[in-house]
């Protein structure tokens, strides 16, 4: 193991996590390019890279840059945001089963968005500005409210992992029920739109979806990286953490807030894409061979997961495109079950 020092910043440099990030980034670019290349009007991979580097014909430029690239980019960024959020949640709860799905953030965001789609939809104003601005904003608000609610309700002279998870299960149940109620209010067209949204979809995503997630990631990933040391400390038991001189509850609150914002922003862009936040930190942890989920590794794995799942969802079912969330849920839920069985064998939760 070597170290690095750039001005006042120094830290350990481990090769394996580093390699995971680099190789992962390469795979993300490749998968993204394939995702851009495939479609009703296929474009050879070579020409895709050509266009991305500034060449290509006008028609190809339009298809690639205006239609398909935003979708692929949204997928990558949403996956990355969810991966980081999951890594932070899991480090804090000291539990591989924690994540924005279990902690109510994504369902809260879903309830917010569905409210707007249903009520604005019946007034005939979803579409245009309401859809572009109102739905993501409502999702962001809903996610934040649900996240803070879970955190506040689980607070009892500090936070404990199991209580956080159980309160999250409760809040998830309410928001889920509320969403199901809203499904019955509108007509069936609205209901179909809602159903697609709460499943998590990258369909028809444009640059306006890329920018918010991109900005959030640009700000919050460095912030999270600064907090890595805190996360490292938080894996020990509470007394040890205090002994290390970390202000326990302050550190937890800041990191949790950060993760909630990331998850809510991601959900606002693509809907609640299930299980990415749960699975990617654990995959990254195994690939990188570290003790806690690595943040950058989780981000890369998350991005890769979403883009590949989206490819599967688009191509595997003939002419019909399923929302990406269906694929991640059907792949991810068995993984959560596997985690449960395994953690039970190790006699710890």
């Amino acid at each position, binding site marked *: 193991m070597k170290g690095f020092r750039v001005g006042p910043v120094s830290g350990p440099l481990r090769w394996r996590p580093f390699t995971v990030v680099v190789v992962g980034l390469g795979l993300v670019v490749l998968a993204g390019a394939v995702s851009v290349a495939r479609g009703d009007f296929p474009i050879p991979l070579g020409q895709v890279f050509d266009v991305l580097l500034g060449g290509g014909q006008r028609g190809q430029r339009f298809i690639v840059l205006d239609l398909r690239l935003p979708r692929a980019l949204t997928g990558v960024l949403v996956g990355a945001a969810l991966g980081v959020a999951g890594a932070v949640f899991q480090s804090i709860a000291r539990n591989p*089963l924690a994540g924005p*799905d*279990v902690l109510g953030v994504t369902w809260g965001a879903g309830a917010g968005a569905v409210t707007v789609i249903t009520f604005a939809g019946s007034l005939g104003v979803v579409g245009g500005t309401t859809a572009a601005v109102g739905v993501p904003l409502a999702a962001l608000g809903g996610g934040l409210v649900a996240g803070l609610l879970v955190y506040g*309700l*689980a607070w*009892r002279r500090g936070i404990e992992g*199991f*209580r956080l*998870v*159980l*309160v999250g*299960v*409760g*809040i*998830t*149940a*309410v928001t889920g*029920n*509320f969403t*199901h*109620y809203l*499904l*019955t209010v509108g007509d*069936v067209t609205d*209901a*179909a739109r809602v*159903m*697609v949204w*709460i*499943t998590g979809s990258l369909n028809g995503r444009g640059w306006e979806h890329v920018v918010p997630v991109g900005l959030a990631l640009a700000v919050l990933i460095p912030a999270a990286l600064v907090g890595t040391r805190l996360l490292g400390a938080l894996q020990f038991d509470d007394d040890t953490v205090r002994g290390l001189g970390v202000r326990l509850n302050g550190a937890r609150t800041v990191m949790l807030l950060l993760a909630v914002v990331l998850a809510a922003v991601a959900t606002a862009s693509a809907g609640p894409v*299930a*299980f990415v936040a749960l699975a990617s930190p654990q995959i990254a942890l195994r690939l990188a061979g570290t003790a806690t989920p690595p943040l950058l590794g989780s981000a890369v794995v998350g991005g890769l997961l979403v883009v590949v799942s989206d490819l599967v969802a688009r191509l595997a079912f003939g002419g*019909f495109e*399923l*929302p990406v*969330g*269906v694929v*991640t*849920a*059907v792949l*991810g*839920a*068995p993984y*959560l*079950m596997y985690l*449960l*069985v395994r953690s*039970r*064998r190790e*006699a710890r*939760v």
Partner: protein
Amino acid sequence: MALRSTRLALLVGLLGLVALASVAIGAKDIPLADVWHALTAPTGLENDLVVRELRVPRTVLGIAVGVALGVGGALMQGHTRNPLADPGILGVTQGAAFAVVLSIFTLGVSSLYGYVWFAFAGALMASVVVFLLGSGRNGPTPVTLALAGAAVSALMHGLVSALVLLDRQSLDAFRFWQVGAIAGRDLDLLWQVLPFLVLGLVLAGVNASGLNALALGDDVARSLGQRVAVTRVVGVVATTLLVGGAVAVCGPIGFLGLVVPHAARALTGPDHRWLLPFAGVIGAIVLLVADVVGRVVTRPGELEVGVVLALVGAPFFIALVRRRKLVRL
């Protein structure tokens, strides 16, 4: 003993009052005299029809489903020795939901009579899977069971969304079932499910004393002469019949099975021979009250009973979780 009997009698009386309220209160204002008239000597007036065709079936159905879910919840909490057990939280309702959607989608089952069987199968499958996933060497803990339920629910929900999105007709039928309501079901449906509910209740009654022994732990129960495996199987079958039947008719009604057994335990203590009947009566009362509240708050519209119960039940669940030590059963 005498105290418990009095309390049970009082509760049954209360249930009678609530049932009367459920018949009398609704979107249409009907004076009490007319309600009485409709019940005793109907002459085919509009009010008579509203009471006899809409409100009475709804109330009867509410009582049956409330009893089933209350007793089912108590059985679940007793068998898992888990204060947070609830058909919704343990994924049983989502399992039933998936089976129902699958039947609508692949076999074109469109009547509620057809759903019932699939709902049973789905509920049974999900409850067995969740219980197996959530219990380890030291038996199931509240957290692992809740998480196993969340995992199974998520999987089922993903599959359901896929099916529903592929077929708009399934979506239209499914969304109204999914929210959980006792309105708009006719009595024929209840007659179809009633045998299963009754069988479930009988099995639950047989199961009660065995559950008391199981509460002491499997080893002690065995030394007391209980056949633990048999007791468990009877319990699972009874739970599935009660919960699956209720879910098939009314859709997933959440939190009733969670809240009611706790209320019953507060009134009668942990003896399952008393706990189960108390839970049944309280379940019916709570369901009917929630239904009446749902009719009143958004007049002339209605809030489905599933929504009302979630709004009431979730805070209760969170309060339970916040107790310093989870209640141990």
